[in-house]
């Protein structure tokens, strides 16, 4: 699983373009430093070949998609990190201030909880409804961007950040 993987540069450029367009369409921004981002995109493509999904290039994936769910890019921690620090953990995504040059990209501390305390490991315990009255429909929350919707099942793709269905958790 870990043999050498070479990614053709056209593939890196194609995904770069795609991620950039998707980010801008939903109010997110890629890091303006082009070579830096190309390196990260290459890492995403290497991980996709290795594990079958684009896990964060700056975090160690296990190869078990369920365990790695929170670090599949965009990770569950991106929005909070961009808001607090101006960039996500690997610095693929940045805030508007960074984009405008008013803030610098910096290496940040890991927000991901240690093993055993991650959202996907706690899924077995649905939250207790706060009141006695249950809502007429379950409420689902996107763990990537916080989008909420009340319906029988979460959407196949988050309409806001495009995260897949398995990134949703039962909110209520």
């Amino acid at each position, binding site marked *: 699983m*870990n043999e*050498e*993987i*070479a990614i053709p540069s056209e593939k890196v450029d194609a995904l770069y373009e795609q991620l950039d367009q998707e980010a801008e369409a939903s109010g997110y921004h890629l890091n303006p430093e082009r*070579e*830096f981002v190309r*390196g*990260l995109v*290459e*890492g995403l493509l*290497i*991980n996709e070949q*290795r594990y079958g999904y684009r896990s964060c*290039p*700056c*975090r*160690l*994936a296990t190869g078990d998609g369920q365990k790695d769910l929170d670090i599949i890019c965009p990770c569950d921690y991106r929005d909070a990190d961009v808001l607090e620090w101006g960039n996500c953990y*690997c*610095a693929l995504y940045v805030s508007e201030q960074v984009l405008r040059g008013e803030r610098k990209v910096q*290496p940040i*501390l*890991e927000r*991901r909880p*240690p093993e055993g305390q991650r959202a996907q490991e706690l899924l077995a315990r649905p939250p207790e409804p706060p009141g006695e009255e249950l809502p007429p429909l379950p409420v689902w929350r996107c763990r990537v961007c916080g989008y909420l919707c009340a319906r029988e099942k979460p959407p196949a793709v988050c309409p806001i950040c495009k995260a897949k269905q398995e990134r949703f958790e039962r909110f209520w």
Partner: protein
Amino acid sequence: MPESRGCIQGPRDEHRIVFYGLSTCIWCRRTRQYPPLPPPYTGGGRGGGLGVTFEYAYVDLLHEQEQEEVLAQVRRWNPSVSFPTIVVDDVQCVVGYRPEELQEVLGL
């Protein structure tokens, strides 16, 4: 892509330095290349920018058992098991891309 493990010989070898990283991690790459080469740099450069001798392990390139052994070493120094983790002389550890802190620890 780099080898999974190895040793880089540099002109400075006063310290025993072990670098634990991920081959896909840009911050790991930047740490190894500090001070940075002028753009456009090609990436994956082998020479340690600081000119120090160091051992390295790219944990993502290791196979299961070896990876577990190396992760146990990383965990001892950095329980959050993030990268890069750089252990100096088996007494100090620098976590993340912190070139200034690393230089200070190395007395450079």
